[in-house]
């Protein structure tokens, strides 16, 4: 082997630096954030492992094409201020994305060191920079373009909406965000729990766009309080980022028993309504002893881990495929397992059984085995006949997915939807089938990720700006 190459290879450090975390024993009893973040030393140490590839593949794995090697080299130099600036050129929510982006299947999976299982911890570095900036107390306010006199309405204050608003306000347009709930942030606020994404971080991002001049109107249900057509009389453009908020149920007997929750209800009670502080906060919550969560995604893990923190003795994930097919991020399922969540794989609930007062007491399940791969490429779960069994449970959280909320589509003539209930919108521009109306995020893609919603918001903002300048649809 070429001696020069051997020498270079030997310098490569394949040891990813772990991020300090609360220990499982402690964290399963509190709602504080699990991961504690890199220290400056750890961040620099991790950043130094980056090979600064000439043709960085990590960048191609990022839906918003962040200049990853660039911001990492800023960390190596200890110039965190330059690093966060670089990051924010492409990502307006780095503190959020650094925490909840599935980096292992995006940027980090493309890292040249991923082959040797030593990929750079890009997400942790992103999070480090964002947290460093927050600790400085003052965030640099970018300069705004001259007012254009154009008005844009943004419906929904989740990641897509915040991105559109943040981009358009800088371009000089007047932006108003309409939020149906009493607090802005969308799924970041009502869905993702405090221990994975502290609400102070979401509040900070919302506060930032407000300080830029974006008006945020909460408690305003577009489709009910005003229709899109009414908004179009007052606004030059409307962006729909209403997300995927309609919970699915399984259509099995007993689903309306007390103790059966949609993940949306369960998490909203805990997060948005601060159920974990009951009775200090007044939205009531039940103290369940045995909780089952049906599903294998991040929302399922969030629900299971919330149930533990609410004092349940036994929390189970019930998933119809095997461990290998869990759609949740590995980090999340590992965290759940460490905290004591029991995984019942290859299991499907077929019936919920209740007592005479209408409360859940048992779940009847059936065992599954994996067959041939289906359309999603994953092996299809098949029921094993006569393998039914029952588990005693006093609550079950159904976390099997959401579809888009039909409130806006159904009250807006001219807005075309797909069979799945998502809005038809151009992939590159976010233009819907209705003039002056754009859409992006989960309402277009179906339930997906924060970063994809942000990317879609960014594209739509570009297209809206172009339209507002030229006046041509």
């Amino acid at each position: 082997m070429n001696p020069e190459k051997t020498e270079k290879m030997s310098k490569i450090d394949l040891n990813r630096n772990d991020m300090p975390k609360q220990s499982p024993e402690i964290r399963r009893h509190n709602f504080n954030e699990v991961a504690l973040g890199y220290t400056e030393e750890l961040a620099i140490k991790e950043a130094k492992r980056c090979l600064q590839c000439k043709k960085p593949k990590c960048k191609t794995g990022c839906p918003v094409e962040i200049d990853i090697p660039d911001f990492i080299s800023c960390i190596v130099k200890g110039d965190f201020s330059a690093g966060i600036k670089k990051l924010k050129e492409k990502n307006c929510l780095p503190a959020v994305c650094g925490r909840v982006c599935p980096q292992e299947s995006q940027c980090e999976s493309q890292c040249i060191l991923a082959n040797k299982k030593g990929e750079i911890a890009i997400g942790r570095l992103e999070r480090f920079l964002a947290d460093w900036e927050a600790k400085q107390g003052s965030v640099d306010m970018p300069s705004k373009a001259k007012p254009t006199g154009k008005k844009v309405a943004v419906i929904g204050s989740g990641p897509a909406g915040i991105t559109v608003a943040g981009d358009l306000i800088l371009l000089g347009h007047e932006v108003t965000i309409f939020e149906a709930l009493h607090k802005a942030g969308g799924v970041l606020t009502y869905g993702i729990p405090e221990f994975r994404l502290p609400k102070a971080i979401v509040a900070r991002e919302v506060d930032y766009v407000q300080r830029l001049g974006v008006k945020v109107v909460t408690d305003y249900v577009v489709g009910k309080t005003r229709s899109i057509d009414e908004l179009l009389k007052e606004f030059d453009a409307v962006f729909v980022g209403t997300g995927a908020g309609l919970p699915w149920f399984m259509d099995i007997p007993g689903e309306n028993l007390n103790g059966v929750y949609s993940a949306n209800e369960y998490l909203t009670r805990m997060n948005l309504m601060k159920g974990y502080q009951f009775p200090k906060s007044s939205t009531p919550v039940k103290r369940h002893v045995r909780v089952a969560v049906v599903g294998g995604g991040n929302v399922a893990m969030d629900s299971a881990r919330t149930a533990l923190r609410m004092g349940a003795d036994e929390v189970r994930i019930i998933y119809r495929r095997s461990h290998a097919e869990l759609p949740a991020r590995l980090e999340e399922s590992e965290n759940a397992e460490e905290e004591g969540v029991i995984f019942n794989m290859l299991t499907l609930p077929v019936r919920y059984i209740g007592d005479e007062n209408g409360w859940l007491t048992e779940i009847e399940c059936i065992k599954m085995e994996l067959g041939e791969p289906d359309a999603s490429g994953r092996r299809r779960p098949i029921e094993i006949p006569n393998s039914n069994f029952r588990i005693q449970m006093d609550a079950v959280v159904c976390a099997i997915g959401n579809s888009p909320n039909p409130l806006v589509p159904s009250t807006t003539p001219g807005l075309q939807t797909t069979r799945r209930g998502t809005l038809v919108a151009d992939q590159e521009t976010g233009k819907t089938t209705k003039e002056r109306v754009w859409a992006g995020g989960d309402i277009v893609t179906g339930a997906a990720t924060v970063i994809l919603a942000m990317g879609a918001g960014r594209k739509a903002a570009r297209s809206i700006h172009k339209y507002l300048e030229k006046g041509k649809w």
Partner: protein
Amino acid sequence: MNSIVERRMIVPNMHLLTIEAPDIASKVKPGQFVIVRANDEGERIPLSVADWDEERGTITIVFMEVGASTGALACLDEKDTVSTCVGPLGNETEIGNFGTVVCVGGCYGIASLYPVARALKEAGNKVIMVFEARSSYLIYWVDRYIKLVDRVFNITRDGSLGYKGHITCLPDVIHGLQNPPDRVIVNGCTFLMARASEMTRGLGILTVVNLNPIMIDGTGMCGVCRVTVKGKMKFACVDGPEFSGHEVDWKEFLARRKAYLEEEALFFRRSEPKQAVHKEVKCQYES
């Protein structure tokens, strides 16, 4: 926004709030509801809109004080504001010229039915109002209804006014009419709506109820308001709140309504000795 311009107790334990909410006032239709939070820590509770004034930009809600959240709301005064008042939510009542319509109202439902009765009159119906209450002193808005509807009946449990008895008297009222009504609309507590539906089922009269389940967002997101109607799962907030009373699974609905009775009671037990608190909620109580 959201400031209270009028606040009254109209009969014992029954409160009326008129709230400044111009966006809602200009949009609301009979049968729709709003979600209100009394304060920043408050629970989101759905309440029917009992009246509105588009010009003044106000809406009126009437509610009974039954627990912590309605209690907090009842403690507010004129010039105070509610943290949330969002709507109008749910679908509007189906209004048409049906012929004769019997409206049955009990509790807060007497107020909720008022805009429905008004719209029915405007659509050319003969409207008969039936007040149901424990006693005559709990009946209100009689003067408003008398000016509006064609006939008024009362059913009181103590017999202090009108028919003596429960809503089971409803068939007597109906049989006493010249012609059987074309439709019955019931609004009030779950028990009233369930029993009234039972009574009219045998008479074969279409009966509309305005369901009042527990809700959080009121826009179809949480699914806590689900109800079985004609064997199918419906969300009362977006598919309702009005359904045919003959198609609702009342046993299930009643059980779901009662889901948090124990927690609700916790608020009133907080000054009691610790051992009196149910063990399920003990640790929260201690903290």
